[in-house]
């Protein structure tokens, strides 16, 4: 199993050198999976909605089927101005949706 994972990473990271490069690749993959699991648990525990819980479970399952995720993350985080523009637009939209759909009451 481990050999197979090593082969996958080695194939994708051949230009980054062997050994330590692949080790850090493993670490980042482990970090991503841990992040998704922790985020899933946090949403399940704190969100007071069945819909939210089901949604997070589906997203979590979908992500876990797409491992290794680090290469996708790396692809989406290049210096490309187009990608940054896309994520900036997306973030502005998310911010407006969250603030308008959330509570406006001060506590």
């Amino acid at each position, binding site marked *: 199993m481990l050999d197979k994972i090593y082969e996958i990473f080695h194939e994708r990271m051949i230009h980054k050198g062997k050994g330590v490069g692949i080790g850090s690749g493993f670490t980042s993959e482990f970090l991503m999976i841990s992040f998704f699991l922790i985020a899933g648990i946090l949403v399940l525990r704190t969100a007071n909605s069945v819909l939210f819980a089901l949604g997070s479970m589906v997203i979590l399952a979908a992500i876990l089927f797409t491992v290794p995720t*680090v290469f996708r993350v790396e692809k989406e985080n290049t*210096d490309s101005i187009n990608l940054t523009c896309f994520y*900036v637009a997306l973030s*502005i939209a998310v911010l407006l949706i969250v603030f308008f759909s959330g509570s406006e009451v001060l506590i």
Partner: protein
Amino acid sequence: MFNSTLIPLMVVFPLIAAILVNFLHQKDRSVKTIAIISSIVAVIIPLITLYGVHLFSGHIRTESFPEMSKLLIPDVYMGIVYSYGPLQKILLALLTVMTVFVIFLSLNRKLISGVYVAMIFISLASVSAIILADDFFNFFVFTEVLTVAQAALVIAVKETKSHKAAFKYMIFGTVSGGSILLGIALLLGIYGLLNMTDLSNAIIAGGALPPIALTAVALITVGWLYESGLFPFHIVKSNMYENATPEAAALLQLQSKFVLVAMSIALLRIFSGYTLLKSVMLGFAIFTVVIGSVMALQQTELRKLLSFVAVGQAGLVAMGIGLGTSFSISAGIFHAINDVLSMAILFFVAGYILDSYKTTKLDQLGDGLQKAPLIGLIMFLATLAISGVPPFNSYQSEFRLIQAAVQAGYAELGILIILLSIATFVAIIKAFYMIFMKPGTNVKPDLAIRGRMHKTIIVILIVMCLFIGLFPHLVYDPIYNVIVALGV
């Protein structure tokens, strides 16, 4: 002399120094002399200034104008106000000391000129104003000045990729600057106020936020993300750090984190009680910290690796602030202070390596421990410091962040912080191995580079890290008291 009238001098003096060195462009000896004297004076000013409030134009609090503000708050400030307290003192002392270090290191570089040093002074004045300002428009003006000065520092490297990085930074700066300005204009339209204290009082008196105020919150949050270098602007920010000289990168990351702290406090003060804002801050912070760490692990170039670590650590600071309790906010600010020290050491080490090897590509480096054992030792200690290993300073702040997360009811975030510390350690120790312990190297180091100044400064910084780690209360307690008093 020793009174709060010195407060505006913390902004005005670096601006005067900037104008002076700018006039003396290319007269390197005069520039050096003025730069050294001015930077030392800039360190002294915050230390001798008493705590207090400076009211520009002599305006004092005056009766409210209900027809303008539409809300019944007893009185308002009619002029620009600068507040100076223990938190500002700590931040400004560190900012000025680091600026001195960066100026000292930059003086040895070929790119030194009046304009370059002027940009360092302008960025110092801008960050000082951002930390001191209690007026939202004044705050905005200096964030814009800071953006231009930072871009100029990167452009000074005179490489195509530096120009591209600065150009991108400016493009997104227009988006963020426009967002902040529109947000401020909307708030001014609703409440008729620009002073942060008055705005906060007016918003609390008004109860629920109207839709226009919610739009303002969203727009100002976009600006907050940009100025702090959080997702989705993390790439733009890391690109800036990577393409600046390593010394300038150390200063840029410090400025970004202090602006993050100042702007977060401003937002939390103005919209105090609006819990959704804190949740949004927390969400973006978590995203930044994970992506920053994952990207750092993937890098094979030292400066790029450190840039992503710096971005990830900014996320950790924002995470503490986003948790929203007095304890977590204090821990977040404390982590900002600790992290800028450790990151500065690592960037200065990168500067030394760049000078010696003419490259920072990890696969081309090696055998470093035999050639520069002191630099290797300091880099190893800085790696321990930034990863939160005791007895260094970041241990104290990360431990508090974990405690704050658990106390706030988010134990999962405590686990995430531990995982991120491990990831940071792995990312930097990989670089350490490849530079200092890996046998064989493709490039020949320039042994004529002694780097005495580099060595002295990084030794001072690691001693500072150790000192704060051993006596954290000297720094943490004043921060906690200020945050409790602010009631954010």
